[in-house]
């Protein structure tokens, strides 16, 4: 832009914020929304690797990751409803979706992905559900009857059909998951008025970091739950998960850095605003937390885990720690993109500030409640759908 030409690049920023730009409209709930759908996507990838691509070693976590994805998908709309100015009108999204808007597809994409995921879970769990139906009573039995389509047929023929259906559903589930999350990235990438958002890399970055967060979450949850229950941990499974995580994290981190690099190398558009943002208001949360602490450290650790032979218990411990850090990395990355991006005024001359509230409907307490809910749902679902395979309890002990 003309205003930023020549040597006056830095000095031309005199901290002017457009009068309507002081308020950050998309706050923590919009940070949470892509975070939650990202967890769904990543967990689904693990399940897809097992059910569609026959990565056998992932068997111990395959079912769990499906349930994990479902629990979070149930809560994906919650932050959006809390964010909307008029939440009671949310069905307008389904009734009159504007064909030109990237956001309008949300209701339909969400509904389809929810349907597909529910049916995948039902078919995957059918043998267990049939068994549980026989041993349960009253209302719970009624529930199991509905969930097994009131059929107890576990013949080889029926099971073969189930496997086909699962493969088909997971097969269409992958593009749906990619669309569900890629489109979230595109919602940001499609805002040309915001120089940090408007890049075609945005959906790609969102997708890969989604996979990172989801896989990390599954690894961490698997290790923690198994430890708490005093059960053994399948090392082969963790290793496959970590290797997948390495792949996705390298991709995610590369693209995240590529975006920053292209801004400063191309010096196009309002790059001085983006640079000023990353080196100014976001200096800590971006360079220190997102890049140095939460990306470089895990990257080095994952490198060690991938290349050097270390004993199993240390490996598992490191896997859990790296997963926790990466979960934080993705959350911080979402924060830096969503809230960070809005700190730049469209005046291209100044930055506003964001102060999180505690008791607001989009405040810190609400964030904690929204993040706790999927775990409560997961706990309840665990009562209906057993997380782990029975045989895995005995199998794993020997390895």
């Amino acid at each position, binding site marked *: 832009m003309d205003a930023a030409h020549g040597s006056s690049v830095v000095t031309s920023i005199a901290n002017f914020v457009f009068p309507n730009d002081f308020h950050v409209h998309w706050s923590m709930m919009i940070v949470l929304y892509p975070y939650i759908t990202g967890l769904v996507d990543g967990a689904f990838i693990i399940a897809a690797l097992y059910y569609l691509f026959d990565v056998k070693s992932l068997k111990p976590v395959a079912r769990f990751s499906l349930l994990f994805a479902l629990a979070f998908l149930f809560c994906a709309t919650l932050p959006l409803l809390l964010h909307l100015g008029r939440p009671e009108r949310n069905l307008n999204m*389904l*009734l*009159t979706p*504007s*064909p*030109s808007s990237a956001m309008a597809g949300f209701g339909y994409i969400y509904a389809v992905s929810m*349907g597909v995921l529910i049916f995948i879970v039902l078919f995957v769990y059918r043998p267990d559900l049939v068994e549980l139906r026989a041993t349960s009573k009253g209302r719970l039995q009624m529930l199991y009857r509905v969930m097994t*389509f*009131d*059929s107890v*047929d576990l*013949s080889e023929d*029926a099971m073969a*059909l189930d496997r086909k*259906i699962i493969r088909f559903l997971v097969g269409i589930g992958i593009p749906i998951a990619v669309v569900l999350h890629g489109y979230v990235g595109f919602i940001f990438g499609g805002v040309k008025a915001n120089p940090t958002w408007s890049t075609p890399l945005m959906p790609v970055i969102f997708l890969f970091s989604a996979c990172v967060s989801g896989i990390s979450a599954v690894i961490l949850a698997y290790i923690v739950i198994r430890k708490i229950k005093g059960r053994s941990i399948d090392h082969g499974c963790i290793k496959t998960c970590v290797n997948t995580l390495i792949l996705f994290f390298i991709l995610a981190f590369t693209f995240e850095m590529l975006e920053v690099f292209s801004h400063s190398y191309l010096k196009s558009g309002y790059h001085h605003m983006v640079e000023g943002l990353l080196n100014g208001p976001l200096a800590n949360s971006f360079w220190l937390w997102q890049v140095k602490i939460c990306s470089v450290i895990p990257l080095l650790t994952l490198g060690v885990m991938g290349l050097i032979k270390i004993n199993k218990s240390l490996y598992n411990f490191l896997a859990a720690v790296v997963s926790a850090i990466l979960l934080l990395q993705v959350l911080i990355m979402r924060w830096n993109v969503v809230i960070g991006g809005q700190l730049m005024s469209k005046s291209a001359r100044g930055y506003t500030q964001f102060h999180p509230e505690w008791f607001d409907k989009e405040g810190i307490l609400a964030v904690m409640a929204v993040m706790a809910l999927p775990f409560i749902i997961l706990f309840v679902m665990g009562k209906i759908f057993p997380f782990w395979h029975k045989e895995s309890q005995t199998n794993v002990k020997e390895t």
Partner: protein
Amino acid sequence: MGLTYRRRLLIVLISIVVLSAGGLLIKRLLLPKSFGVYGPYRADAIAEAALVPIRHGTNASCLKCHPYEAKIHKKGRHQAISCEFCHGTFADHVTDGKKSGTLPVKKEKEITTLCLRCHNTEIKARHEEVIKTVAMPDHLKNQNVKLTNNCNQCHHVHAPLKYINRAKQITGMMEAGL
């Protein structure tokens, strides 16, 4: 029930299709009236936007009932100034053709503040060809008046040069071109 597993699944599939079709039907039924006439929006919203009540009238609406002010205002250098900017909106004063409220009249220092919104030279962005500006209190000093004077003690607010020109006429300064 003696249905085979495949049959049951078929029923499930059919119910999904039926439910989706039902959903689309409901979507059609719940579509707001006049939606999509000109594009993917409610055409009636245009009419609603056109029916929003207006609050500002024009100078003509004010001067209809204030002939005395009209006479002065229309002749003076301030003829382009909107009555409602200094006095308040028409809607706060008149409802259904009847007086419904009293508009506050600016007094003393308020007047000077109001005048300097436009006529302050210190704000170096006001070109002489657009507006005559003065610096305070230099202007008061140059005119040899008290520094506590308000603008309206010399300038009629509706026709700022009314008294000045009159005074110049009387003293013969006008003819002398001063």
